[in-house]
């Protein structure tokens, strides 16, 4: 008999009426036992009336839809995350000779990168603790620059190390674009490919762009605003007079936060955000990029393992503080070198 079924409700109602009637009929009977009979009759009637009311409310609001739910809180089902990220983890482990003490930078040549119309393969930097936390997913920062911005690869590792020390770990991707650079590639293909090769998050990346690349960056954000909710634009030509014409990109979706280095950051439609600090005087190109990276990384979530799966089966006696995870249920990280696939 279903907990929310009409039959149980009718039965409870009839039982209440029957108990009331029996109490009235037996009120003056049973001799010396009439007092306890009366007490039991009154309490039983009250309990059954309340039960009927409770069942009616439960049927209306669907609080408890089955007996298991009411009595044992048994819940089955759940969510599954089927993916095999981190295909380059083993390769990184073999080639990172810094003993995971420093961020590791490498030239990334994924399949099809030539179709992205970049000037060169992107340079990717994984944080120092990447291999030590094989169950974690890392947010990422994509840096777009072009020839003449002065952001040479030589500074990449140092910048990554400096930014990670100050703002925490993140995967950094440095891409040197060309005029033919593809927006869909930077918005979709590159993140998708990196999501297979490294353990990066599927959302909440940041984009850092030189002022020259701002139009491209804006299009990338528009194409994937959920992927890039934070955009930092760095003036170029630092050190040779104030760069002109650097304005915050317009027309971005509500909720995308933009920072033009040296000006207050703004969330689209004017919400509060962080003011990046690049120093009281206008910084050099590399310093500007470092400040932009710091700002961008600070917009990102912390590296985390997958969320706890939805409870599949819980069996708790009624009335007990239920479903609390047992103490000491902290995620057990497998040791470095046992997980993931080679490239």
């Amino acid at each position, binding site marked *: 008999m279903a907990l929310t079924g009409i039959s149980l409700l009718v039965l409870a109602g009839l039982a209440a009426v029957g108990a009331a009637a029996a109490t009235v009929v037996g*009120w003056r009977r049973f001799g010396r036992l009439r*007092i*306890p009979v*009366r*007490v039991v009759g*009154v*309490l039983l009637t*009250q309990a059954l009336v309340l039960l009927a009311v*409770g069942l009616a409310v439960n049927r209306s*609001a*669907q*609080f*408890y*839809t*089955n007996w298991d*739910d009411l009595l044992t*809180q*048994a*819940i*089955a*089902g759940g*969510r599954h995350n089927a993916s095999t990220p981190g295909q380059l983890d083993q390769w990184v482990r073999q080639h990172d000779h810094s003993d995971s003490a420093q961020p590791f930078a490498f030239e990334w040549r994924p399949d099809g990168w030539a179709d992205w119309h970049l000037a060169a393969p992107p340079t990717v930097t994984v944080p120092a603790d990447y291999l030590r936390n094989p169950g974690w997913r890392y947010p990422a920062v994509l840096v777009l620059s072009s020839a003449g911005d002065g952001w040479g690869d030589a500074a990449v590792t140092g910048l990554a190390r400096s930014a990670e020390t*100050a*703002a*925490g770990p993140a995967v950094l991707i440095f891409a040197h674009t060309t005029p033919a650079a593809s927006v869909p590639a930077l918005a979709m293909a590159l993140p998708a490919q990196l999501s297979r090769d490294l353990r990066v998050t599927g*959302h909440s990346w940041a984009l850092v762009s030189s002022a020259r690349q701002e139009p491209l960056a804006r299009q990338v954000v528009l194409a*994937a605003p*959920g992927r890039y*909710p934070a955009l930092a634009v760095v003036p170029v030509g630092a050190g040779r007079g104030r760069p002109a014409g650097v304005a915050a990109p317009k027309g971005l*979706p*509500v*909720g*995308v*936060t933009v920072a033009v280095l040296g000006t207050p*950051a703004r*969330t*689209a*439609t*004017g*919400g*509060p955000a*962080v003011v990046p600090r690049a120093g009281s005087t206008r910084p050099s190109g590399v310093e500007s990029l470092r400040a932009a990276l710091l700002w961008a990384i*600070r*917009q990102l*979530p*912390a590296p*985390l*393992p*997958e*969320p*706890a799966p*939805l*409870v599949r089966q*819980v069996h708790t006696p009624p009335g007990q503080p*239920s*479903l*609390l*995870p047992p103490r000491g249920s*902290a*995620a057990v990280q497998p040791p470095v070198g046992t997980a993931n696939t080679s490239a």
Partner: protein
Amino acid sequence: MAPDSLALLLLAVATAVVAAVALALTWERGSGWWRVALRAGSASLCVATALAAALVWVNRQVETYTSWSDLTGAPPAAAALSDPPPPGGGSGGRLVNLTVPGRASGLSLPMMAYLPAAYDARPTARFPVIEALHGYPSSPMGWTKTLHAPEYLDREIAAGRMAPTVVLFPYITPDRLLDTECTNLSHGPQAETYLTVDVPEAVKSQLRVRTDRAGWGLIGYSAGAFCAANLALRHPTGYAAAASLSGYTTPGITVGDGSENTLNNDAWRLQHLPPPAIALYLGSARADHSSLRSATTLARLAHAPMSVTTGYIDGGGHNAGTWLAMEPTAFDWLSSWLARPLAAG
């Protein structure tokens, strides 16, 4: 003896039994009008005590009245919320009581806040924030006592599945039996302003938290679930993500300006307004047909730049067991969308 205590429930049940005994014993006592009055009085006492026991049981389930001042209508004192454990007393976080002076809304209410252990260990860091909204009728105790949120948060943070986060437990209504659904009622409390302006303002000035939108999120169950999704949709420059556990698409109340059919109707918003770049987690039990239908509707209507994650569990219902089951996943999910704790400098 608090109104939601087991002792009061046992006392109420015992009183109901005594009332039944009294009815049975006094039925033949007296004569004339005195007998009639005695019977009527003891019968009324029976009904009243039985109802009282039932109400205390219900109150224990939903944690609507957690102190006697709630019942008497007096402004709840911060101390009435709970007795927070002493700071630094263990490896877990701690609860503190704040008062939110409602400069914008005119509502001044107490609020509990969960501070993670890292709050004390990293004295210069600023932490992301989650506003946890209770159901109706309920109170912040619904989160802290019924749903054991502090214990869950301790465990998820210790497990590394969640970044250290400050979690706020505000009231969503100044009157326990007035359903605001976190809206600004035309002729009533300005709950939306309280939750989206006064609470953030008070917390930013009293606690070390992130002040930017990327570090703020919402979570709620039942009415609080509608609140979380609706407030995130209405204030995307204040919140980056929201988790809705057994929510709805509409407030189910009359706001007073008709907005329950438009701007305070999440399905209407997604059909008629550009979606903001926020992330929503929509959780429901499959057996909770109303909430499930609402979640699937919102998921169907949402599109980029909005991101929606759904989590459904088989069975369940619109009850604490379901929310307990969804709670850790939802907190972890929120943390994965909120900006990290901000180191000083």
